[in-house]
């Protein structure tokens, strides 16, 4: 049975989802203005997925992410200012400007890293889960993969290994329907990614990824299984991204107005807000207050990033090794 969420939990969840949304919407704007370099993949639209999972993670649980990692980072507790500065490539960034959007990591927060390699994360998550198992901490690891990543050999191998070694790891497939411009209905050879669970001896479940509560409940079960030492699970979150694959994508592979319709009809945050104000004792004012906090937070983060110094020549050759 699902644990009952307190009002505080719900406000936390809202804060996290909204922070992600505002962060991404703002990065979108700043990118267009030319302030942000490189390849940037935005998470807007998928907030319920990272948040429903993240809320249940302990600090020592580990999260392996992918190229679309901002939401996972925020949900795992990485500082927004450092993230924004990293995306701008500044010395004050989470990775001192050396990583950028695709490589934000914060190992102290249990954030093992975004990843520029599709399918890079699943084996790493198995390793983190193995460490938790060996140390007997009751910790777990979770890895977020896209529908595209579900076809990468590393992902399959990791799922097999996780069952063979009975690792406390949860594989979350964020199926947003596309891998770049390719439809998941083309690239994934089975009906649902969840169909693959049986081939790896683990439970698999399809989850409405726009529904925070559905995500929360499914992950609760998977996490309990992991922490109890019963092995891995596969969750398929069906959801949608509100922006292109990366900034600059004209999205011509999507039907016209798909995004507009999604933003209006199935926005996970709108849905969450309606539900918690209707029947969970949360007030609209409470949410408004959070909105205002977040607006300030994001403004501050951008200002911080813009005003931060860049790394300099002295930083080029450091941090390759620990012992030189």
């Amino acid at each position: 049975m699902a644990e009952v969420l307190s009002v505080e939990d719900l406000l936390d969840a809202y804060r996290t989802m909204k922070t992600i949304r505002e962060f991404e919407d703002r990065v979108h704007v700043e990118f267009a203005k030319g302030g942000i370099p490189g390849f940037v993949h935005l998470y807007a639209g998928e907030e319920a997925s990272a948040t429903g999972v993240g809320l249940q993670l302990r600090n020592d649980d580990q999260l392996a992410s992918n190229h679309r990692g901002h939401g996972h980072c925020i949900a795992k507790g990485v500082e927004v200012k450092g993230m924004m500065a990293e995306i701008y490539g500044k010395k004050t960034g989470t990775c001192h400007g050396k990583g950028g959007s695709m490589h934000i990591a914060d190992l102290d927060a249990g954030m093992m890293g975004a990843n520029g390699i599709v399918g890079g994360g699943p084996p790493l998550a198995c390793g983190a889960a193995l460490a938790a198992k060996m140390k007997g901490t009751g910790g777990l690891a979770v890895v977020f993969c896209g529908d595209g990543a579900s076809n990468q050999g590393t992902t399959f191998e990791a799922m097999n290994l996780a069952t063979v070694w009975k690792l406390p790891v949860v594989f979350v497939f964020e199926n947003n329907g596309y891998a770049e411009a390719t439809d998941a209905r083309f690239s994934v050879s089975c009906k649902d990614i969840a169909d693959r669970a049986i081939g790896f001896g683990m439970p698999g479940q399809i989850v409405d990824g726009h529904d925070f509560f559905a995500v929360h409940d499914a992950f609760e079960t998977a996490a309990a299984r992991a922490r109890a030492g019963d092995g891995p699970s596969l969750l398929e979150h069906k959801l949608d991204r509100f922006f292109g694959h990366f900034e600059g994508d004209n999205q011509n592979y999507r039907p016209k107005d798909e995004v507009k319709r999604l933003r209006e009809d199935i926005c996970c945050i709108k849905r969450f807000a309606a539900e918690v104000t209707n029947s969970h004792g949360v007030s609209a004012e409470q949410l408004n207050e959070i909105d205002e906090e977040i607006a300030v937070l994001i403004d501050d983060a951008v200002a911080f990033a813009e005003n931060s110094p860049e790394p300099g020549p002295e930083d080029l050759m450091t941090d390759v090794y620990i012992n030189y």
Partner: protein
Amino acid sequence: MARRITYMQAINEALDQEMARDESVIIMGEDVVGGSGSDGEMDAWGGVLGVTKGLYGKYGDRIMDTPISEAGFVGAAVGAATAGMRPVCELMFIDFVGVCFDQIYNQAAKFRYMFGGKAETPVVIRTMIGAGFRAAAQHSQCLYPMFTAVPGLKVVVPSSPYDVKGLLIQAIRDNDPVIFCEHKVLYTMEGDVPEESYTIPFGEANVVREGDDITIIALGRMVHQALAAATTLAKDGISCEVIDPRTTSPFDEDTILESIENTGRAVIVDEATPRCNMATDISALIGRKAFGDLKAPIEMVTAPHTPVPFNGTLEDLYIPSPAAIEAAVRQTVEYA
């Protein structure tokens, strides 16, 4: 008839002409069409930067999107090549080779030898190399030395629109596996390119600029950095010969050795990291075969022994610059 087109357009044209000429040429890769399975436009992308855009309209199912399964589809390209096709397979960024390298160096490259000379594997792997896009550590590498090391592979690093077209057509017609390294920063570079089909043979270096005081050997984008340095140095009366090997395997030793015979000095510019790279490979070659000609140590201007940094200031420092090349040339020329 030559017109000015971009490096990217030249690649597209080479593919187009070879597909028209030879039915067995097929293309596969992630979003090389784009839009497969979706309700929007088909041929939506033509590759992540649009290089293959438009070919789907002409050649339909001979150009195929793939799942994100590089080992699977690169291996399929290799297998199809042994079975009579001439696949041109796109590995989006060379950085991704870590998930599919086996199919390239243990399979494609070795078939002919392991099978006693009986296999033919005419596969081309087109892939993007190089820094300069603020694309960070996993999308900016220059891994061609790793392929150059592999017996059985041919490796091409084209530096201009003209070269990229002629070399790609050659690659497609070549009967051995070819790794074709396109520098992403060069995609928008314009140059004169004949409309008609032509080939540039492998293993023939291009003397891009003639000179007498020193030989600069540079590959891919570095050819342009070297030319910029040469222009500056000419103002100070230092005459640089700039040589672009074009292919690292096979490698044209003669053109370089002849140049060194004349200049007695060399600087090698390689965007790859400094260990076991092309700069060391070529330096060792010259040191061995032109020892008597050398009047100064061979300087190597390369990326540092670090991953590619994201920050722009650092990335610009990472990439061998005309200034760094200039400094190396001056040092070499002044050596007595």
